[in-house]
Structures are given as structure tokens and as C-alpha cells.
């Protein structure tokens, strides 16, 4: 296939292809819906991609790549940016030499997330420029534009996408020829990259200067353009909301914003004045509307009821018609559930039987909150089970404290459970504590990605392996138990009961591979023993053809 032929690609795949054609040297990230497929596809195309233990580390590796003069792509879901926020805010101050593109995949409507945060706020808070594609072609084009802008202004760039951009397949016409890659090279810049206060103060001024230059660029870039139409109705919009709005009001004039931080406020003011009625159509928070109103311009924003959930064509029609009548509820579908034969059944049966107070975590096992078990008392964010469990143990009356168990999956444990164990050793509750790692040997919820505990890389080759029981012992946990889960919960229930009664600090590694992943895991292991785990030849050939 010639590279100028159109391909049918998801937004995620289009970002990966854009990264490959844009000369990205390394993609890093942590799996999270709807971002996961980006790195998988980059690897499939023959690009270099790695899973990191969490988003913070992924971004830090990306910063190193960009400090080294190469181009870096870092991918995560919206809540992942919370984890990566610490390095993000500071790398905005230091700037970069190569390119650093951070993909934030937001999930309005929370199809697969624990909150509905709108990460456009991060662009403002951290002081980083932001691109918002509306379809797969723009996902490809804007990835390239983001790389270019990052290198031009030496600044990390946010590529903000949403579920319906990530997971919509649409045609993409790629570049005829990929860009050449820069040659990585270290240049010492002691004052630029060491954020001690004396250096950080001028760094902040440099950042604001870059953003001022980019605000001027925002006024002229074709990424922010007017689609002429009726003078009666003008719509200012960005991302997927543009597509819904074009369909809902084909007669309207549009100011379509693809570069949304810093905003082109002069261009926006001209547009607002050019139409009789101007409405801002955006999903999630009133980010655009607030900024435009703060600039002294009169625009309509959506009523609060449309802040929740995704927009669609009908909802945009309602916004334009000032229709705030209750929306018809869709009949409920069948909720997801733990798979037949899933090892989590055994654990949740035991937790239910013992009437445990369960501090849960993020993963398939969050389904333990649903009937028939209803055996999870909280699920907040990645790794939170251990700290929350300890907090409950510290304050509850002893009879209740003794029932508290922290339950965390293997990938989630590597992501951010290790510091929880350090806390447990350092500040042990009087009644002890029990942490159960549900080790199903994969990142199951997001579609079976590898992680540092599997001992295999993103493309399933052999690598170093974090062993939880060794880690627990090294940290000094009094009792570390490995329990191979069977089909029956009685033995596990006995072990759990004894552990709770011991009033010691106990780490139980409850182990059985995910029933959906087990067959593939056996094949990866077989490939590792036969040929050292190199990628299958067919995958490499397919990658070369794209």
C-alpha cells in the first residue's frame, strides 16, 4: 500500500501512525481506556513503545528522551495525568530540547473511568499548549503539529483527545513521506533543567514568554479556522463536539478550534461580533465558555445538565433550542460481570463470607462491588486500597478494624501499591493489616497488557520481573504468603481468616492467570523459551508495509 492511500484508522491508531511518521524515538505510557491502543499500535507498526509501571514514570522517561534531543510520545487516560502531574508542571518550566507530546485521553460519560475530569484544565494549570483533534485525520495531523510545536518552542505539548476520537474509526490520508528523525545528543544546561528556586524563577518567566508567543501563533494557525455560514448563528467549538454541532446545525457559522491553549482571543472576538447569536458547544467543563466570557465577550454556554456525559447530535440540538426538558433515559443494558472461571470469584466469595470491610482498587475486580458479592466498600484511584485500608484500621473500633482488608490487582500494585506497603511498615495499625494482591498475571481490565510483574515487555519479549513476594519480604512485612488460587474458595477463606486473626502485617499474593489471558501467556512463555522472545516475524512484516 502506498502511504498516500487512505486507511481506515481509529483515532488511537492515527496518533500512533502520526508519531511514527513524525520521527518519535520512543513511546511510553500506562494502559488506560481509551488511550491503550496507541502504544500497542505504535509497536505493531514497528515503532518503539514501552509500558511503564505508571504514568509518572512514563512521563519522566519521556522527559529524558526529549532532554536528549529526540522525540517522545507519552500516553495515558485522563486520570493518569493526575499521577503524572508532578513532572508535567515542572517540565513545562524547564522546557525540552527534542519533542515531548503528552496524550491525555479523556472519558466524558465515564464509560470506563472513576471520574469525569476535563483535562483541558491541565493545559492552563501547567502552562502547556494544547491540541484537540476532532477525528482520526486530525488525530494524525495534530500529532505531527504537536511534535513540530514542541520542538519549535521547546515546550511539552498536550494532545487532548476523548473516547469518541480515540475509538472512532475513520479514513486517514497519511503523509507521503515520514519526517527524518533528529539525532539524539546531550547538551548540558545546568541552569535550564535544575529547578532549584534561583533557576526556577527565570524558568517560569521563560515559560510565560513562550506561551505569549504561542498565543500570537494561535491567532494565525489554520488549526483555528472559521467555517462560514449563517450570520444569525455562530458556534464556537472544539474536538468531537465540532462534529456533533456541524450535524445538528449545518447552516451555522463555525469557529472550529483545534489549538485550544493559549486561545486565539482576537479571532474569537471577531467571530463573536460577526454573528447575531454565538453559542459555545463543548463537552465536559465550560472551559471555552469561561475563558471567552472572562475576555469580556458575550456568548451562550450550555445549561449545566449538559456538563454531564457525552454530547451527541440530539443534545446539541437541545442546547441550541434552549430545551432543558428531562432527557429520555435509555433502557439499562446488561452490566458487565466477572468472567466465568475468573479467579476473582474465589477471593470475593471468601471476603463476603467473612464479612470483610474491603478497601478495593482499580481493575476488573472492581466488579466485586456488584451482586452477587457486593464485597467491595470503596474504589477511589489506582493504588488507594492500601492507604485507605490502613486509615480505616487506624480509627475504627478494634472489632471492626480487624475486618479490614486491602485488595489490589497485580498491575495496579506495581503502578502505585508499593508506596502503600512502605506506609504499612512505617505506620502499622494496632490490629495489623492484610493486603491481598490479586495476581492474575496481566493488566486485564484494559485488554491484557504486560507490566513489570509479568516479566515481559509490551511486545511480550522476556525482560526483568518484579516479584511481589520478594518485594514484600524485602520491605520487612511480617508474613508474606503466596496462595495459588483454585476453583474452591474454602482454603483461601481459611487463610484469610487466620491472617486477620493474627493481627500481624500480612501480604497475601493470590495467584492465578486471568482466564481470558492464560492461553496467550502460555504462548508468550513458549516463544521466550524457544527463540528468546523476539517479535513474531509476521508482525514485523506487517509493520514494514504500513
Amino acid at each position: 500500500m502506498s502511504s498516500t492511500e487512505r486507511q481506515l484508522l481509529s483515532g488511537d491508531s492515527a496518533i500512533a501512525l502520526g508519531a511514527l511518521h513524525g520521527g518519535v524515538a520512543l513511546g511510553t505510557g500506562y494502559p488506560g481506556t481509551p488511550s491503550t491502543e496507541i502504544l500497542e499500535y505504535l509497536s505493531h507498526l514497528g515503532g518503539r513503545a514501552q509500558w511503564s509501571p505508571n504514568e509518572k514514570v512514563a512521563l519522566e522517561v519521556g522527559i529524558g528522551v526529549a532532554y536528549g534531543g529526540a522525540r517522545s510520545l507519552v500516553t495515558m487516560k485522563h486520570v493518569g495525568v493526575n499521577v503524572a502531574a508532578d513532572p508535567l508542571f515542572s517540565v513545562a518550566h524547564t522546557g525540552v530540547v527534542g519533542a515531548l507530546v503528552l496524550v491525555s485521553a479523556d472519558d466524558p460519560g465515564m464509560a470506563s473511568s472513576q471520574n469525569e475530569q476535563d483535562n483541558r484544565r491541565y493545559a492552563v494549570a501547567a502552562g502547556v499548549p494544547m491540541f484537540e483533534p476532532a477525528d482520526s485525520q486530525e488525530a494524525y495531523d495534530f500529532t505531527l503539529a504537536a511534535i513540530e510545536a514542541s520542538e519549535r518552542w521547546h515546550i511539552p505539548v498536550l494532545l487532548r483527545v476523548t473516547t469518541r476520537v480515540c475509538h472512532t474509526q475513520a479514513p486517514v490520508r497519511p503523509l507521503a513521506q515520514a519526517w527524518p528523525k533528529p539525532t539524539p545528543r546531550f547538551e548540558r544546561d545546568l541552569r535550564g533543567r535544575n529547578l532549584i528556586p534561583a533557576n526556577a524563577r527565570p524558568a517560569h518567566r521563560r515559560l510565560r514568554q513562550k506561551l505569549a508567543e504561542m498565543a500570537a501563533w494561535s491567532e494565525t494557525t489554520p488549526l483555528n479556522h472559521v467555517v462560514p455560514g449563517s450570520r444569525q448563528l455562530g458556534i464556537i467549538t472544539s474536538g468531537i463536539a465540532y462534529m456533533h454541532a456541524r450535524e445538528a446545525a449545518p447552516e451555522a457559522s463555525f469557529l472550529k478550534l483545534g489549538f485550544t491553549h493559549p486561545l486565539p482571543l482576537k479571532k474569537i472576538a471577531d467571530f463573536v461580533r460577526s454573528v447575531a447569536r454565538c453559542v459555545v458547544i463543548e463537552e465536559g467543563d465550560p472551559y471555552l465558555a469561561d475563558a471567552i466570557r472572562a475576555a469580556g465577550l458575550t456568548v451562550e454556554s450550555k445549561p449545566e445538565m449538559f456538563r454531564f456525559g457525552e454530547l451527541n447530535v440530539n443534545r446539541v440540538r437541545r442546547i441550541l433550542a434552549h430545551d432543558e426538558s428531562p432527557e429520555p433515559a435509555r433502557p439499562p443494558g446488561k452490566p458487565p460481570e466477572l468472567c466465568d472461571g475468573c479467579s476473582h470469584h474465589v477471593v470475593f466469595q471468601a471476603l463476603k463470607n467473612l464479612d470483610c470491610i474491603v478497601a478495593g482498587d482499580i481493575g476488573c475486580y472492581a466488579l466485586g462491588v456488584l451482586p452477587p458479592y457486593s464485597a467491595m466498600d470503596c474504589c477511589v484511584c489506582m493504588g488507594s486500597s492500601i492507604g485507605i485500608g490502613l486509615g480505616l484500621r487506624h480509627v475504627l473500633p478494634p472489632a471492626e478494624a480487624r475486618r479490614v482488608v486491602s485488595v489490589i490487582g497485580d498491575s495496579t500494585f506495581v503502578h502505585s501499591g508499593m508506596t502503600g506497603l512502605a506506609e504499612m511498615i512505617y505506620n502499622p495499625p494496632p490490629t495489623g493489616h492484610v493486603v491481598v494482591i490479586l495476581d492474575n498475571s496481566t493488566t486485564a481490565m484494559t485488554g491484557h497488557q504486560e507490566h513489570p510483574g509479568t516479566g515481559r515487555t509490551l511486545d511480550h519479549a522476556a525482560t526483568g520481573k518484579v516479584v511481589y513476594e520478594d518485594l514484600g519480604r524485602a520491605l520487612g512485612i511480617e508474613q508474606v504468603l503466596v496462595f495459588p488460587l483454585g476453583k474452591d474458595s474454602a482454603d483461601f477463606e481459611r487463610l484469610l481468616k487466620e491472617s486477620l486473626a493474627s493481627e500481624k502485617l500480612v501480604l497475601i499474593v493470590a495467584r492465578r492467570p486471568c482466564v481470558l489471558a492464560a492461553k496467550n501467556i502460555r504462548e508468550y512463555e513458549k516463544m521466550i523459551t524457544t527463540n528468546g522472545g523476539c517479535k513474531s516475524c509476521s508482525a514485523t512484516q506487517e509493520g514494514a508495509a504500513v
Partner: protein
Amino acid sequence: MKQPVNIILAGLGGQGVIKASDILSEAAFRAGFEVKKSEIHGMSQRGGSVTSDVRFGPQVLSPMVPPGEADFLVVLAPDQVEVNRGQLRPGGWLIAPDLVDPAQLANRKSFNVALLGALSMHLEIPEAQWRAALRACLAPKLHAANEQAFEVGRRAVVAKEHNS
């Protein structure tokens, strides 16, 4: 602007709803249409309700079929028919799971493709593009069973029209 054809495929996680929508969008793309295909991944993979929206035509803007405006609703699981019926426009076509007898299929897992065969009788996508899409989206060892299933679905429509 000519409106796109709106199709919703529905079923339960593991039934091949997404694979079917891959094949449909690939066939429409190969036939020269603008195409968008959109669905929610994630929690729904764990046996819950799954739907996928496919829109094709001379121009497609929103990737989601506006609620209540589907021209075709293809449902793989009997208990998902009523859940999704409200997505059909008045006069839209329902392709329900009882149209095809799974016993007629060389491989029951190809039920999704059998219903695509039924859908194909209603769409302006040449049969050659359907067959090319099947081959492009499925592993070679699955081609024979799925081509048979596709044919079973096409014949089911003819039989139903003949009997009615």
C-alpha cells in the same frame, strides 16, 4: 447534504459485535463511502451490553448515530432487542437474532457474520467488497466458515421475504 446510512450493531461482550462492525465499516470504506465507526470499549468487554455505531455515506460528521435515528438495528442477543429498539427510526429495519438458525452455521461463532449477511441484502455495498472485507478482517483459517455464515444470512432474508 445527503444523510449517511445509520446502523447500530448490538449484543453482549464476547459475541463479536465489534468484529462485525469492523467488517461492515471496512466493506463500506472499500465501496468508496466516507465511514465512521464508534463504540465504547472497556467495562463492556466483561459480558455486558455492547453496541457499535456505523455510519457511511457521502459525508459523515458525528461518529454516533443520533438517538432514535438508526436506519438498521442488528441485534446478536435476544435480550438486547428491547434494550436497543428505541434507537431505530420509525420505519427502520430490525435484524433480530431469530432470523438465523445457529444450527445452520458451520461454526456458531460466526453468528455475527451471518447477521451481517442479512444486513448486506439491504445496503448499497457490492457483494465483492463484503467478501474482501471479511478476508481483510478475519484470520485465513476463519474465512471458509464465515463466508458460509454470510451466505446463510443472505439466504435467510430471501426466505423471509418469500414467506411473507
